[in-house]
């Protein structure tokens, strides 16, 4: 008997009440938890970068380049959890060449490509073109070749050409903000449009996904900035961190309000599925929803960030807070995705019972695979930071 079947027999023995026989197996596993998580990090990091670029929040300058490269690194990996969970991964390209027009999922490929190629790639390229030309002249060997290749052998770094780069980069960013909204709002729509599943089927889902994406992306950039400064033995810019924390606070409030609204609405209208979902929330999802997502991932950060808006402790203490809070927030959003994706499959659509989540360490849907797709973006980011260090760029004012 295969390990997969063994797992299923074990799950069968743990089924509570009645579930349709085909529902014993959880079809979307931990990899599909990662997919909205990673995409959310991309959208969030990009929106933070665009705050500096479009909305001219100059104080965020130290994180602009980091945010862009972070978004790009995670974007490159965003589809991998999806593809590796397919039953037929080698047919994945079909979604691009024969998309089914009525399917929400079919649009993913296009939204993804648009965002990756047109928005992120172009923005980074125009932002770094001049620096790549200069760096190519200052290096030798492979690295020089790489810079030449990446800058497409352009050499014009006259003020006029650089001004044009900056202008195009700005336009791309302007297009990028709605695109980032589209990308992640759309991921929420994939779940929100499934009328068969009352835990997913809410019109708020795209908006909730969008704001939770911003929360997670901002927290990630905050964390990476602090850790990078430590590694580079540089002093962190506290004004920048305070400002990021302020934005994180505002968006966390919106996110919390939206999710709260969703739950209050569910409780108040108490539809057919209410009893089944109520039992789910206070049973199998209790820790992941109330403790990890709610208390540690939302309430504690909200209260801490809220307090910091009125009372500013010493920089050293704030720095420690800014190191711990993003970790909590990132964990909270991870469990938010978990509660949506896994939670939505734990109860039967008959509302008569519950199945159990079980996955192994190894295998295409195992924890190791999931961990891989979480680690790879950081490796890509390390490479990109080595190749395109934002701190070695020539200062431009982005006017």
């Amino acid at each position: 008997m295969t390990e997969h079947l063994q797992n299923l027999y074990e799950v069968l023995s743990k089924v509570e009440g009645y579930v349709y026989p085909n529902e014993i197996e959880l079809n979307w596993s931990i990899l599909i938890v990662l997919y909205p998580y990673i995409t959310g990090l991309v959208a969030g990091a990009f929106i933070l970068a665009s705050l500096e670029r479009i909305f001219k929040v100059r104080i965020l300058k130290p994180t602009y380049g980091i945010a862009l490269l972070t978004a790009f690194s995670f974007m490159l990996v965003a589809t991998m959890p999806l593809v590796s969970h397919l039953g037929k991964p080698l047919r994945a390209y079909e979604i691009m060449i024969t998309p089914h027009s009525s399917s929400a999922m079919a649009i993913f490929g296009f939204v993804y490509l648009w965002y990756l190629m047109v928005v992120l790639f172009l923005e980074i390229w125009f932002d770094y073109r001049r620096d790549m030309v200069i760096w190519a002249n200052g290096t030798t060997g492979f690295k020089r070749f790489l810079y030449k290749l990446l800058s497409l052998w352009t050499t014009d770094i006259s003020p006029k050409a650089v001004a044009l780069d900056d202008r195009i980069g700005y336009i791309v960013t302007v297009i990028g903000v709605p695109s980032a909204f589209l990308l992640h709002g759309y991921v929420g729509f994939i779940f929100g449009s499934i009328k068969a599943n009352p835990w997913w089927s809410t019109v708020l889902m795209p908006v909730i996904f969008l704001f939770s994406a911003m929360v997670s992306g901002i927290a990630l950039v905050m964390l990476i900035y602090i850790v990078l400064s430590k590694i580079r033995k540089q002093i962190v810019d506290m004004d920048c961190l305070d400002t990021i924390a302020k934005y994180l606070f505002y968006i966390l409030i919106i996110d919390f309000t939206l999710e709260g609204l969703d739950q209050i609405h569910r409780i108040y209208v108490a539809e057919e599925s209410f009893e089944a979902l109520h039992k789910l929330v206070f049973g199998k999802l209790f820790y992941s929803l109330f403790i990890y997502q709610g208390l540690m991932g939302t309430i504690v950060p909200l209260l801490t960030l809220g307090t910091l808006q009125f009372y500013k402790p010493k920089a050293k203490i704030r720095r420690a807070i800014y190191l711990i809070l993003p970790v909590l927030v990132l964990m909270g959003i991870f469990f938010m995705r978990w509660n949506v994706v896994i939670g939505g499959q734990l109860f039967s659509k008959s509302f008569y019972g519950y199945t159990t989540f079980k996955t192994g360490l190894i295998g295409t849907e195992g924890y190791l695979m999931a961990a891989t797709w979480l680690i790879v973006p950081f490796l890509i980011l390390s490479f990109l930071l080595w190749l395109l260090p934002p701190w070695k760029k020539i200062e431009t004012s982005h006017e």
Partner: protein
Amino acid sequence: MNEDTTKLSRRNFFKAGTVLASGVAIASTLAPYDGLLFAAEAPGAKGKWYGIGIDINKCIGCGKCANACKQENNVPKDPFYFRSWVEQYTIKNDGSILVESPNGGIDGFKQSVPDGDIYKSFFVPKMCNHCAKSPCTQVCPVGATFETEEGIVLVDETYCIGCRYCVQACPYGCRYIHPEKGTVDKCTLCFHRLKKGLQPACFEICPTEARIFGDLNDPKSKLNYFLKNHTCMVIKPHLNTGSKLFYNALTPEVR
């Protein structure tokens, strides 16, 4: 003063009359869509338009349909993969409901509730509803699952990428991922048998004729006779899937 009121009320009368008349006019254009029973509107009067009838009063829970389906269609034998299965509902005297389907009912049923505690008990065979507005077909990102002209929902397994979105979208739990093929699998209404003029396996084997299969476009079909003479309902009508699986004696606790 009196005159004013008359004028006003006359105006109101015309207003209300117009609203009512246009309401009726709009409603009459919508009339073809109003039938709950035939929420599954046939694409045209020509050709066959298959539907299914199941008489809950006649099902004895022998599970032969579920077994025949597995044998006919090479469905994996493990109890997690079913194109067709039978559920046993037991409503106890205290009002609580017990639903069971050990191995999809293939090995038959044993009543676990003592006779004295049972208010009523019955069996409900389940299978793909072959919806006319099937959510599973809607969500397939590559169009590997489709509805045939005869109203049967099929999957092209040489094309399916195994993303499992359709499994999530089916409100009735009728789809599973084939463990060896990695693609989705579901009831085909024994399409291969239909093409030979045979009945689907689960219909042919039913010893009590609890399952009726036929052409909804044919007014003289056995299925239409069954629908006219029984009070039939579909499961989860509020989801508006255009289900074409009609149950006689369906009660609200069946979901």
